[in-house]
């Protein structure tokens, strides 16, 4: 059967935004329009909404999202276009001739208010008991339009049950306004395809295949749908009440590890501009909240590099020197639990390509409950490990049954950036005002290499900094160790580094071009996997994949909203912090040397490492039984 290749399911009529716009200097590229009586020049093909936003004219929107294809379903963005009988949706109206637009006429205002009243008539919820209170687009609109009564009534009783089946995502469809952003996120942006609308008219409901609980379908827990939902209909599974309980329990030793991305974004929850790094203020806040120890996940990111880099070199040796047929190359990274679940569902026959390394979060958990517990003489059964993550999939990951190599549940709770911000607020703290504080020893100081794990390409860059030096004895040949080809937000990046003048023990790598690829967002991962399946990647050695667009800094647990601009700012914050750190290579982190001397004495990928730091995967397949 011949299959046609589709890059996007949206019909062309819905994608004027992706219409190539002319070069702005070309003749006839721009068109003069009038908005509210003032003249503007815009590129042909610009939508009315874009034109307004470029010129700081406010037009409300709900179903529109910068990351997604257009839908035009909510109608709150309606404007008047002279000469057209009906109001037009600004978000889907491409400008191709001289039009006159009014964004604030009486007709427009009344229509928008009407649309809003209709939405509220089907919306169940009281804002003060809602986790999106203060950060909800519907609530904001209601305020903007001065809603003081329910013109068409208000829902008093729940229609649907809350779906709490998933470790990661909670769905409360009574708060859904059917904007379908989550649908477009899951189908078009991530290409997982879990959510769609069922039924029609006022019975429409966003749901999963056969209305099954989210835990029973092929959701990869990436949480990207949460980040794009304008209301509280989708949220992460919040463990903070349980965490408060263990903090208040004096018999428990509560340890928290913080991933690289939350610190670059949590400021947004406190009104700071995106890209404000809050690393040290966050440490203070965590101490004040009552965590006994505050550690840096970057430490186990460094550990991951040691393990994963060694694994790669071993695979290269086995493949190139020993000709071992059972060794799979390219090696795929394994630190993104969303990606792991994606490949388990969609490419179950390719699990051997994955690195066997656990994610840094899980490595941390098993190191804490073994090495740390022993060194500090704490009964591991009294240790509770919490992980602050930019990610909702980490909640699923820490609950995977095989994640107990310390003899206990390695990581007890995964906490998102948003949930931590909420805990900080509950503790009565205003993060930006706090004095800086340090991480605790021994897992405090990490290298910049561990830090850049947060951005797409970061794992690759960190791995190269170490692997290159391991093999050649010299630092990577890039200015300031900044491996620029690894950076940026292109969907799939590919580059190579030539290994020259290698150390004698690595002589088989002399002159070899180390070829690597980087993909972020599962839609891009799919492209890479399809090439792999077609056998086109035989010259590639290493592929980094992150499930979320932008890498962890765009994770499903990060502050809402998200946009390409915001993700770029967060990346800048991370790279800036890396540039300023004294140690920027994983293998030079003194605590890494220490742990291999004292604990993992048989070295990276040794026996103990295998027990504690490596894992195996499950062939899930995508059939929904």
């Amino acid at each position, binding site marked *: *059967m*011949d299959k*046609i290749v589709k890059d996007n399911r949206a019909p062309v009529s819905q994608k004027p935004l992706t219409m190539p716009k002319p070069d702005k200097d070309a003749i006839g590229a721009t068109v003069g329009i009038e908005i509210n009586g003032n003249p503007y020049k815009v590129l042909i093909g610009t939508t009315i909404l874009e034109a307004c936003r470029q010129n700081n004219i406010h037009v409300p929107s709900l179903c529109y999202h910068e990351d997604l294809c257009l839908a035009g379903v909510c109608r709150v963005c309606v404007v008047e276009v002279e000469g057209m009988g009906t109001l037009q949706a600004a978000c889907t109206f491409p400008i191709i001739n001289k039009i006159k637009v009014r964004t604030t006429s009486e007709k427009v205002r009344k229509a928008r208010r009407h649309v809003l009243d209709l939405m509220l008539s089907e919306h169940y919820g009281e804002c003060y008991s809602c986790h999106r209170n203060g950060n909800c687009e519907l609530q904001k609109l209601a305020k903007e339009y001065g809603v003081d009564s329910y013109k068409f009534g208000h829902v008093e009783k729940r229609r649907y049950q809350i779906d709490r089946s998933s470790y990661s995502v909670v769905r409360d469809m009574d708060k859904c306004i059917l904007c379908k952003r989550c649908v477009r996120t899951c189908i078009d942006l991530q290409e997982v*395809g879990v959510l769609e609308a*069922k039924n029609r008219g006022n019975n429409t409901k966003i*749901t999963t*295949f056969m209305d099954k609980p989210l835990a029973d*379908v092929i959701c990869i827990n990436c949480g990207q749908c949460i980040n794009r939902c304008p209301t509280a209909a989708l949220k992460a599974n919040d463990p903070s009440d349980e965490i408060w309980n263990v903090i208040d329990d004096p018999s428990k030793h509560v340890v928290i590890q913080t991933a690289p991305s939350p610190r670059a974004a949590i400021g947004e929850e406190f009104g700071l501009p995106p890209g404000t790094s809050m690393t040290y203020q966050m440490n203070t806040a965590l101490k004040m909240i009552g965590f006994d120890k505050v550690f840096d996940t970057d430490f186990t990111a460094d550990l991951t590099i040691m393990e994963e880099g060694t694994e790669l070199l071993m695979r290269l040796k086995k493949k190139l020197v020993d000709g071992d047929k059972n060794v799979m190359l390219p090696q795929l990274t394994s630190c993104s639990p969303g990606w792991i679940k994606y490949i388990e569902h969609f490419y179950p026959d390719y699990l051997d390509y994955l690195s066997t390394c656990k994610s840094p979060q899980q490595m941390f958990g098993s190191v804490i409950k073994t090495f740390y517990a022993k060194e500090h003489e704490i009964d591991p059964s009294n240790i509770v490990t919490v992980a602050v993550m930019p990610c909702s999939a980490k909640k699923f990951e820490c609950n995977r049954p095989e994640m107990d190599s310390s003899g206990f549940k390695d990581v007890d709770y995964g906490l998102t950036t948003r949930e931590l911000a909420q805990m900080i607020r509950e503790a009565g703290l205003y993060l930006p005002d706090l004095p800086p504080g340090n991480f605790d020893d021994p897992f405090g100081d990490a290298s910049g290499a561990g830090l850049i794990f947060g951005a797409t390409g970061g794992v690759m860059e960190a791995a190269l900094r170490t692997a290159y030096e391991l093999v050649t004895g010299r630092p990577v040949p890039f200015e300031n160790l900044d491996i620029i080809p690894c950076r940026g937000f292109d969907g799939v990046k590919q580059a190579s580094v030539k290994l020259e003048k290698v150390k004698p023990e690595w002589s088989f790598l002399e002159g070899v071009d180390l070829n690597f690829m980087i993909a972020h967002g599962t839609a891009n991962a799919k492209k890479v996997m399809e090439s792999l399946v077609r056998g086109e990647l035989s010259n590639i050695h290493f592929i980094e994949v992150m499930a979320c667009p932008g890498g962890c800094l765009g994770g499903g647990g990060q502050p809402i909203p998200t946009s390409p601009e915001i993700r770029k700012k967060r990346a800048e914050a991370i790279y800036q912090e890396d540039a300023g750190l004294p140690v920027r290579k994983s293998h030079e982190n003194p605590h890494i040397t220490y742990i291999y001397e004292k604990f993992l004495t048989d070295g990276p990928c040794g026996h103990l490492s295998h027990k504690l730091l490596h894992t195996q995967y499950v062939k899930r397949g995508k059939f929904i039984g």
Partner: protein
Amino acid sequence: MIDIKQNAMTEEIEMLVGKFGSTRDALMPIIQNIQINHGMISDFAQQEVARMLDVHPVEVYGVVTFYSFLSETPKGRYIVRLCRTISCDMAGKEAVARAVERELGIRFGETTADNKFSLEYINCMGMCDQGPSMLVNDLVFTKLTPHTVVDILSKFK
């Protein structure tokens, strides 16, 4: 047993794909055919269609639930669909509805225990001038009264 049935379903869908193509727009004719042949489109069939057209199962499910004439659950051999739109309503649909419910012993939205009849409402089907009207599978009956409707249904029993 289930395996044999599933293989047969897969083969049937492969045949339909051969006939209608494997692009997105082949979805409707394919699932309509399955509906006609089996009276429903099972979750297995939906996933097989999705696999062969390279769309997501949940998209197929969305389409199946969108249309009243497609169903993901089994229905009775005869599907009785009574129009509930305004013209038929004003022509006396309510009395007919009660008569049908009494005759079949089920409410709207239900199927008889012997799987013979399912009862549903539909919206206007263009027979407004001859209301109240109903469909039994694809046969149209018009100008119904509580009496005639009982006669008509008894012919199907």
